[in-house]
């Protein structure tokens, strides 16, 4: 195989691995925000009727971007701690953003098999 062909082949592998990593990180971020995570210490969305938790969704935007969002009208108040909760807790998005590098490190390590 020529060097050019090897580089093209390797580039395809890298592109595939990046796409896989993006999906895995997005899933881990979603889980951290919605259900909580020991990696980030995020508490997850509080549950009363399930409406808030079930309102969170993921959407692929293309160009290696994934949107994670909610359309709940009271999600912002819960996130910032204004609306008190009896389970899980506020600040899940903040803690997930704060622990984002840990999520990426862990998913990379998992893909490497370590």
């Amino acid at each position, binding site marked *: 195989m020529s060097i050019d062909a090897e580089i093209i082949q390797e580039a395809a592998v890298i592109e595939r691995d990046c796409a896989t990593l993006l999906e895995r990180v997005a899933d881990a971020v979603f889980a951290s925000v919605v259900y909580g995570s020991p990696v980030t*210490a995020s508490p997850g969305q509080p549950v009363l009727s399930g409406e808030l938790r079930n309102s969170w969704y993921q959407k692929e935007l293309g160009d290696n971007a994934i949107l994670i969002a909610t359309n709940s009208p009271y999600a912002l108040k819960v996130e910032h*701690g204004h609306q008190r909760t009896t389970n899980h807790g506020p600040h899940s998005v903040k*803690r997930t953003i704060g622990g984002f590098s840990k999520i990426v490190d862990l998913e990379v390590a998992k893909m490497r098999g370590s």
Partner: protein
Amino acid sequence: MIDTHAVHMALRARLEAVAEIPPPADRAWANVPFKPSALRPHIESEMGPIASRLISFPADQGWIEYEGEYVIRHYGITARGESAIETVAMAILAAFPPGVGVVLDNTEDRLRVRGDVGPSRSQIIAADANKSFCAITIPWRAYSQNAVFV
């Protein structure tokens, strides 16, 4: 192992040094009974969840890294414009610039406002009938020595 209460108190002391925040009678601290006045701004703060990991080898007497957010909610009176609430938010952010070190009583421990994920503020959010709030988030990172294994 870090004293997380000491971290909380050090951050709160820095907040209380901000001249623009409401007076002591209008400050609500975690787990302390408080009834906000409907006629005056008030402020609340709390420590968010804290994550930790061992970052050195060996574990015995190694270094632990802690990360968390100190969250402040400043409540202003609704329908009086943005200026008053914005002024307090900016003053608080100015007191916690990215990268600044915060002194702890235990000088072996290190506490710093994060710069990789810097402090931020929310938009003004309507809370109750007559109060709107702005949430200011102060991400912090601290280091402390791990326990001695026996």
